């Protein structure tokens, strides 16, 4: 009897032992799947960031060519006699630069001339103009001037042009490379920090295009968005959490807010187009409309996080206020809101960060226009940073691909800054009751 039982127990034991290895292998395999998944996601993040950094960091510097210019009145096409500000402003500075570069490199023929003139950016003459207008005493002098280089020259200097490609399929020709080498040997080429990228608006020329216009546009958009969504969001959250009776209506409002948080952003763009532009006749491409649309999008985020913050306020604080005779409104405005405010601000910063990265609804309301000027107020036509990225990404030129990556870096830096603020704020003001 016991023998049989022992036998059974033994076979059972053997079975379990045999299966144990398999189960352990399964266990570790399962574990590896998890590790692989996380590593894949993090690897992707690293690849994404490094691709963008490696492509875009070169946009932060640019090339200049040293030219010996002579600012005589003849080349400048200035009439003799009195020199008004106006005349100085309209003088022919491009000719000065062209003459100067012709002195460096001997050319013949129209085609060569054109190839050589492309070395100088169209922005250089305006820089020179500003310099002369600021210091009219420079007139008639000979001086050496560092002129902003044209896009192709700039790209070649940064090593973005592959010289081994067949000459026919690249736009920087062998002859130009020869000229470049000549200039470089004479020490006339230098690489400097690209100030234009941070101070200019958009441009058709990659070496002149900058993000300042888009940054200001983003700023106004976010400002409008904040001014609208923060007070309304906090008020709505306060009402729902503290005053609202629990009935069908408030339940409907709650469901609505949750649903709004999940509506695709482009639908908000359609709403903005139909209501703010077509019905209310607000100006197209304006940060005001962009801010309005984005504020409708960020409202749910702010309301949901503000409600969480209000919920976290211990009821004893409210009860104490009510106990000494404060009204409900007083207990909320004097006690609950100040305690919940850091949490609300954290949610608002996160909502603003989302709004800063949002592109699709802004495209719908016409913030994709090509705008060179820096907007002066929320009613001027403007673009925003992510829309600028989208616009540049469509451009096949190498210089713009570089600008796109650099603009992405700036945008990510802003986002990182905002999110860090949110995290620090939460850490600092987090209280345990």
């Amino acid at each position, binding site marked *: 009897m016991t023998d049989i039982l022992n036998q059974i127990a033994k076979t059972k034991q053997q079975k379990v032992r045999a299966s144990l290895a398999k189960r352990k292998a399964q266990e570790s395999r399962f574990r590896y799947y998890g590790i692989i998944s996380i590593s894949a*996601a993090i690897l992707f993040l690293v690849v994404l960031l490094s691709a963008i950094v490696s492509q875009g960091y070169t946009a932060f510097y640019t090339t200049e060519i040293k030219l010996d210019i002579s600012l005589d009145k003849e080349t400048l096409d200035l009439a003799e006699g009195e020199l008004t500000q106006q005349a100085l402003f309209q003088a022919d500075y491009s000719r000065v630069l062209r003459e100067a570069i012709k002195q460096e490199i001997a050319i013949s023929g129209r085609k060569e001339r054109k190839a050589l003139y492309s070395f100088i950016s169209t922005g250089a003459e305006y820089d020179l103009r500003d310099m002369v207008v600021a210091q009219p005493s420079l007139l008639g002098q000979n001086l050496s001037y560092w002129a902003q280089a044209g896009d192709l020259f700039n790209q070649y200097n940064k090593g973005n042009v592959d010289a081994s490609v067949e000459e026919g399929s690249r736009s920087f020709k062998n002859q130009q490379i020869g000229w470049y080498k000549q200039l470089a040997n004479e020490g006339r080429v230098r690489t400097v920090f690209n100030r234009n990228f941070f101070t200019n608006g958009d441009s058709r020329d990659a070496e002149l295009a900058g993000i300042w216009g888009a940054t200001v546009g983003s700023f106004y958009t976010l400002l409008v968005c904040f001014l609208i969504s923060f007070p309304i969001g906090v008020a709505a959250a306060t009402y729902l959490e503290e005053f*609202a009776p629990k009935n069908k209506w408030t339940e409907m409002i709650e469901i609505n807010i949750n649903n709004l948080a999940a*509506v*695709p952003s482009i639908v908000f763009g359609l709403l903005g187009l139909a209501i703010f532009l077509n019905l209310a006749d607000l100006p197209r491409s304006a940060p005001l409309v962009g801010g309005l649309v984005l504020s409708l999008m960020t409202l749910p985020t702010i309301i949901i996080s503000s409600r969480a913050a209000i919920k976290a306020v211990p009821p004893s604080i409210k009860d104490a206020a009510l106990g000494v005779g404060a009204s409900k409104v007083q207990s909320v405005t004097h006690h609950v809101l100040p305690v919940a405010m850091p949490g609300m601000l954290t949610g608002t910063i996160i909502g603003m960060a989302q709004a800063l990265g949002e592109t699709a609804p802004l495209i*719908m309301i016409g913030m994709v226009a090509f705008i060179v000027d820096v907007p002066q107020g929320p009613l001027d036509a403007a673009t925003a940073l992510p829309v600028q990225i989208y616009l540049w990404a469509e451009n096949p030129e190498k210089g713009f691909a570089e600008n796109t990556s650099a603009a992405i870096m700036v945008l990510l830096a802003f*986002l990182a800054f905002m999110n860090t603020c949110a995290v620090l704020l939460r850490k600092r003001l987090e209280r345990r009751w």
Partner: protein
Amino acid sequence: MNSLLLVILVCISVCAYVIASKRAQQLASANGGLRYLHSRPSYYGMLAAIVTALPALLILFVWSISSASIIQSLVMAGVPDSVLSDGTNHSLIYSQIQHVASGIKVTDHAWLINASAHYQHLLALGDNIKFAALIALAVAGLIFGWKLVGPKLRARPHVESVMRGFLLICSILAILTTFGIVLSVLFEAIRFFNIIPLTDFLFGLQWSPQVALRADQQGASGAFGFIPLLTGTLMISFIAMSIAAPIGLMSAIYLAEYASPRVRSICKPLLEVLAGIPTVVYGFFAALVVAPLIRDSATAIGIESVSSESALAAGLIMGVMIIPFVSSLSDDVITAVPQSLRDGALSLGATRSETIKSVVLPAALPGVVGGLLLAVSRAIGETMIVVMAAGLSANLTANPFESVTTITVQIVTLLIGDQEFDSPKTLAAFALGLSLFVVTLALNFVALRIVKKYREQYD
């Protein structure tokens, strides 16, 4: 003009606050301290300020909405019948008048000059009336508020009820937004369906929204079949989900069940960084790096007909974007499974993976499914990645290497640039928006229901 008016109104109401609270203080000190009053002086001030500013602001609001149409009807009433009855569109005539009035256009038609003069006169008159009336109203409010101050006045409850009203209105704004979306999109979509029958839209197999302006125009058939867009959207979403679902779920399981607190505290924020990256960045990456990579590697292994804008590239990148979304939602539901269930399974000799597979996951399944549905709705509504990486041609294909287009891509391309809003081409965008809204709303609704219902089980 308006901003000046607003500044003046604000100044008057600040005055009202100061005067009324001063008066309340004087009354109190004359009659034996603050206990003589019902409320604290600042409440009297606030009440006076509210009485001053609120009616004026309401009227200003109503005026801004309605003045344009009132002026239009007044101006059009003055236009001679001979002009009105010659068949030109009335709104066209009106915009002509406006252009003449603003000096954009010069004319020698007598009626047009008269009408524009009338228009300018009305505009100026309206502005003056508004200015005078609102300031008078505000001053009247100030005097009324000042008169109101007295020991019997229950200032605080009045102020508080106004505040409550404001809070209520703010929370109703969410509903108004939803209504705004539904109405604005629905209204334009109905105009579209008046031109293109609903059945053609829902069951048509061809999408080429370019409408022919001339009879002999090539490549402008004006076909509005929704099916190719839907299949394109679904294909990209499917590819995205087949990346995001396993990776996101496994990451969540690992982080929730295996990872040490230290690893978890590092990996979780890193995953969330993926969610914080703007989609335009993903789109740029997909178009610039991933799509060429896919094309080159596909041609290297001998697959023909790979287009440079493939569904695969957009889907893969979208999948990566959704990973943190799936993982954080799954993480929530997995950690919500009570520890006692795990302990029970472990004490019976199950390994951890067996516990997860046969106890934790089945218990968490409804929540996970709800999370996946939310992720699908996000994939369907995602715009920038597909706009930049998925292509524009509407292909009815099952080949992920080909270029397909999606609903959101078409909305963007239909509405970029200057367009008139009565051609089916632009109205089609609103029909697409409506379908997008309905589909994602339905998915969200179901998903939220599932998640909520599941959560209640252990509470």
